[in-house]
């Protein structure tokens, strides 16, 4: 199946504004079917789920479960019961930290966190370490800014209970070798938590065959709505998770002397879920099925590569891009990243700048911040050209 980039791009109304959108690592744009489904829910189908018997209410419940099923299929989970709805990737990590780690960690235990991580896959571990007396250990990058297996072997021990690692860095776009990592983690009787926030857009994952214990992502980074995330939990870990938020619909029976929780996933989904977002995301996932995602990714990579190549001619250009990354983070010597960002914004080129919620990685890369152009399959050659021209115009002003 060929990837029809023009047809793909046409599905994103936000691109009609004429802006060059290169901030897809922060949030991906939304395709028309998602927007329509969300608006239809609010316009004509509004109802709560899991509660009432009238048609819209029943349909809403049905749509939520269909979307759960689609998420399970997307990441190759064996059962939709292993998918828990959350507010986003951040809340998912916090759920694992507070419902699993908090009850399994003892003083002196260790949590290994890679140096690549976004703050959302570091701070929840620091919090639970503080609560339990466990320690957070850094899995440092090697000289090529990669996570090598030797480095993991150096820090893993019988004290290690949890290893937290990203599927794809939000700064360099580097993707660690998850299959190898999982083998070592499991051989040491620890569990693996994989942050899919970046990876979900670019690399289809198979959580079952990789034997991942916890996998999580945000819907908005995969052409979906904001305020929705998913947490996948391997079956044997699901029963070990303690209750999280208390409230409506997470329980079977309740009285003033106590309550009996529901089974997973409902046990972790107290209160009215983000129905509109789940329905919108269901439409996104249905729309996504028609595209050859591997071909789309190859196309995206070619754009990032082209941009890197074209910017290479600028003296002082520093690229932090991993070899097969759709994300191009860069700096130009003696130019402050925020000066560049201001002047790119003037030219309607949307990029992200700063520490990108990864302060430890910034220290490792020896910079105070970067300029990040994050490509997606709706970008095109024209976007690359406008980025490159805009950088030259900015330099012309700044130098």
């Amino acid at each position, binding site marked *: 199946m060929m990837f029809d980039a023009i047809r793909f791009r046409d599905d994103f109304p936000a691109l009609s504004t004429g802006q060059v959108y290169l901030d897809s690592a922060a949030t991906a744009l939304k395709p028309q079917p998602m927007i329509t489904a969300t608006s239809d829910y609010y316009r004509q189908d509004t109802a709560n789920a899991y509660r009432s018997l009238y048609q819209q209410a029943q349909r809403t419940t049905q749509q939520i479960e269909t979307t759960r099923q689609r998420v399970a299929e997307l990441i190759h989970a064996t059962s939709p019961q292993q998918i828990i709805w959350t507010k986003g990737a951040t809340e998912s990590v916090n759920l694992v930290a507070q419902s699993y780690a908090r009850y399994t960690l003892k003083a002196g235990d260790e949590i290994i966190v890679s140096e690549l991580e976004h703050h959302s896959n570091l701070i929840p571990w620091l919090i639970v370490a503080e609560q339990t007396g466990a320690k957070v250990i850094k899995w440092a990058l090697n000289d090529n800014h990669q996570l090598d297996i030797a480095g993991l072997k150096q820090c893993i021990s019988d004290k290690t209970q949890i290893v937290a690692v990203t599927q794809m860095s939000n700064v360099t776009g580097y993707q660690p070798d998850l299959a190898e990592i999982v083998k070592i983690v499991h051989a040491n009787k620890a569990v693996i938590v994989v942050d899919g926030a970046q990876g979900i857009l670019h690399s289809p994952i198979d959580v079952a065959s990789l034997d991942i214990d916890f996998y999580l992502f945000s819907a908005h980074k995969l052409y979906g709505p904001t305020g929705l995330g998913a947490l996948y939990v391997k079956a044997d870990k699901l029963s070990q998770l303690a209750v999280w938020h208390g409230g409506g619909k997470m329980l079977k029976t309740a009285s003033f002397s106590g309550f009996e929780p529901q089974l997973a996933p409902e046990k972790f989904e107290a209160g009215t879920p983000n129905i509109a977002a789940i329905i919108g995301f269901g439409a996104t996932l249905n729309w996504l099925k028609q595209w050859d995602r591997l071909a789309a990714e190859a196309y995206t990579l070619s754009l990032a590569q082209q941009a890197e190549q074209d910017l290479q001619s600028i003296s002082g250009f520093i690229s932090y891009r991993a070899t097969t990354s759709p994300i191009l983070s860069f700096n130009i010597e003696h130019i*402050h990243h*925020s000066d560049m960002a201001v002047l790119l914004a003037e030219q309607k080129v949307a990029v992200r*700048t700063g520490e990108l919620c990864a302060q430890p990685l910034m220290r490792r890369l020896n910079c105070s911040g970067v300029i990040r152009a994050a490509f997606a399959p709706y970008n095109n050659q024209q976007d690359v050209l406008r980025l490159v021209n805009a950088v030259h115009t900015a330099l*012309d*002003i*700044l130098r």
Partner: protein
Amino acid sequence: MNALNITEHQLVEQFAQQPTWQDRYRQLIALSKHLPPLAVEDKNAHYHINGCENNVWLKVTRHHDGRFHLSADSDGRIVKGLLAILVILVDGKTAEQITQIPFSDIFHQLKIDTELSESRLVGLNKLIEEIRQAVAQQNS
């Protein structure tokens, strides 16, 4: 006269002559180069302004004659250019004169208020507020 030896009138004239947004930014960068750098020992936490995308240092001192001296620095050139404008407007004035500076009118005349995004305008207003507070504190 202020530390840049440019009057407010000259400043407005310089910017009025710039036909495009690129030229106005060039003018801002040129101004940044005229801003005397802050002494290394003054680039400390005491003078550092929190919450900016760039590192910004602001030092406000009161002379015995009641006039204030403003020195400032940043690691970003655009912000440094904006700081240079603030120095031109504030440096060498008394507390009363400083409270009367019509900052937003002047930024409008310079045509940079349309150029700067909302978040940077907020940042600029924050810097003005910091200056006003420092002046009020030292004058009391």
